């Protein structure tokens, strides 16, 4: 018996619209997935990969993570448009025609659930809001694979339909459909324009809706983890001396660090949450500190922070970053002594690394 189901007469709920919007959505998801993988491996490289991570371009992570968040935000609009297009199929009757058809519908449910889950938890995460009982980073990573996998499976199943509807055809592509696609494009443009300024400096004036605005800063730079959150105070660094281990281990005070030859570099802080900004950093090249300890080139490091607790209290730095000329133990930011929130007395700044690895309140550098 056929139950009473909603009827849809709109002519745009058809495969041609699904393909036209699906192409954009697929592109956004692909960019989001690949840039997400880059971010994952920069933070958690398997052993064989650690030595291969590139230090150039210095703004590489700024670009890829900016793209990650921008493509994710664009995909939110696109996935809604895509789901609108195919919504009537939810009420197809009979619910499945064969066991294979049932499996296909279940994988589509997985694709939809995983995609919406991934995009919205990502959106909520960039607000530093965690209203769920699971770990964001590891879940976001795992579900990304489910999104990518179920999308490829979906493309495989729908390949003939996609091929048949790939090109526009007279009679099928009416003004009404063009108007719909233009509207969706306009929505993507508006969402991008009002948020991407958190990473793209020339568009800052249009940054009205992003969680960050790089113009809201201290010492010229926004903050991700405050000293209060890390439970670090000026008292924490009373009697502070940096400990450097190696063949000739030593401790060095802030006054002695300030007396060493200083180097000034311009490097960005680029955060996993998608914002980024450039800054001038002054400090002692890490390589100089390692030379004093007799640490040979090609040695990777473990850097520890005064932080009481945190996922990134200790950070590992592959050798190519440690040996890079621009990698500093920074003491100054934009010409001023680091504020406590920016990592006083000393912090790491290295090229092409995620912000969470630019360790603040450094207490110890250990040659591995």
């Amino acid at each position, binding site marked *: 018996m056929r139950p009473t189901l909603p009827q849809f007469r709109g002519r745009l709920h058809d495969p041609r619209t699904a393909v036209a919007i699906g192409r954009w959505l697929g592109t956004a998801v692909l960019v989001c997935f690949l840039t997400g993988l880059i971010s994952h491996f920069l933070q958690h490289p398997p052993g064989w990969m650690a030595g291969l991570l590139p230090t150039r371009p210095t703004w590489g992570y700024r670009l890829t993570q900016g793209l990650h968040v921008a493509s994710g935000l664009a995909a939110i609009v696109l996935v809604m448009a895509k789901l609108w297009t195919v919504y009537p199929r939810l009420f197809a009757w009979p619910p499945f025609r064969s066991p294979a058809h049932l499996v296909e519908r279940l994988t589509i449910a997985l694709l939809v659930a995983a995609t919406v889950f991934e995009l919205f938890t990502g*959106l909520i995460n960039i607000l530093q809001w965690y209203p769920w009982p699971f770990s964001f980073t590891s879940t976001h990573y*795992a579900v990304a694979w489910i999104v990518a996998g179920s999308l490829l499976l979906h493309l495989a*199943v729908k390949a003939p339909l996609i091929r048949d509807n790939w090109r526009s055809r007279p009679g099928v592509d009416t003004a009404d459909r063009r108007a719909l696609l233009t509207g969706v494009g306009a929505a993507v443009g508006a969402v991008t324009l009002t948020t991407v300024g958190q990473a793209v400096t020339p568009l800052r004036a249009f940054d009205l809706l992003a969680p960050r605005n790089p113009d809201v800063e201290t010492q010229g730079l926004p903050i991700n983890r405050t000293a209060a959150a890390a439970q670090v105070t000026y008292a924490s660094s009373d009697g502070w001396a940096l400990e450097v281990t190696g063949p000739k281990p030593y401790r060095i005070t802030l006054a002695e660090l300030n007396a060493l030859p200083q180097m000034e570099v311009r490097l960005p802080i680029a955060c996993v949450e998608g914002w980024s900004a450039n800054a001038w950093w002054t400090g002692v090249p890490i390589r100089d500190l390692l030379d004093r300890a007799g640490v040979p080139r090609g040695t990777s490091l473990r850097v520890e922070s005064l932080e009481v607790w945190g996922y990134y209290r200790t950070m590992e730095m592959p050798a190519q970053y440690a040996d890079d000329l621009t990698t500093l133990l920074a003491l100054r930011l934009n010409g001023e002594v680091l504020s406590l929130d920016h990592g006083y007395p000393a912090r790491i700044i290295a090229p092409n690394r995620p912000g969470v690895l630019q360790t603040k309140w450094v207490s110890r550098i250990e040659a591995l």
Partner: protein
Amino acid sequence: MRALRLALGAAGVAGIVTGLFFLLPQPGLWGVVVWFAGAIALHDALIGPLVLAVGLVVARLPDRAVVRGALITMGGLVLITVPALLRPGPSPNPTVLVQPYGRNLLICLAVVAVVAVVLVVLRRRR
């Protein structure tokens, strides 16, 4: 074509298996299941019907192409701003959630409305 489809499908299954391999051992897995189901329920039972109901009205309006485009744009802007408006508690630090989101959203929606009106006027003159 057939070989390509099989390869795509196999890669897809491999991707899903990889994701489950990372996901299943995690604590809080039940929470993920609930949020997955919630994602479908939120769209299929609330957002989808709401948008379709608005669409029924828009379909009867003059200049519906522009009206629909404006509403889609407004919907997108609302969707990405709602979490910032709903987020409870104080901002974790003075440089995150720095904007007056309610006011800024209204400004953006007003700009979209003005652009839509201008487009309608231009189209009618032609």
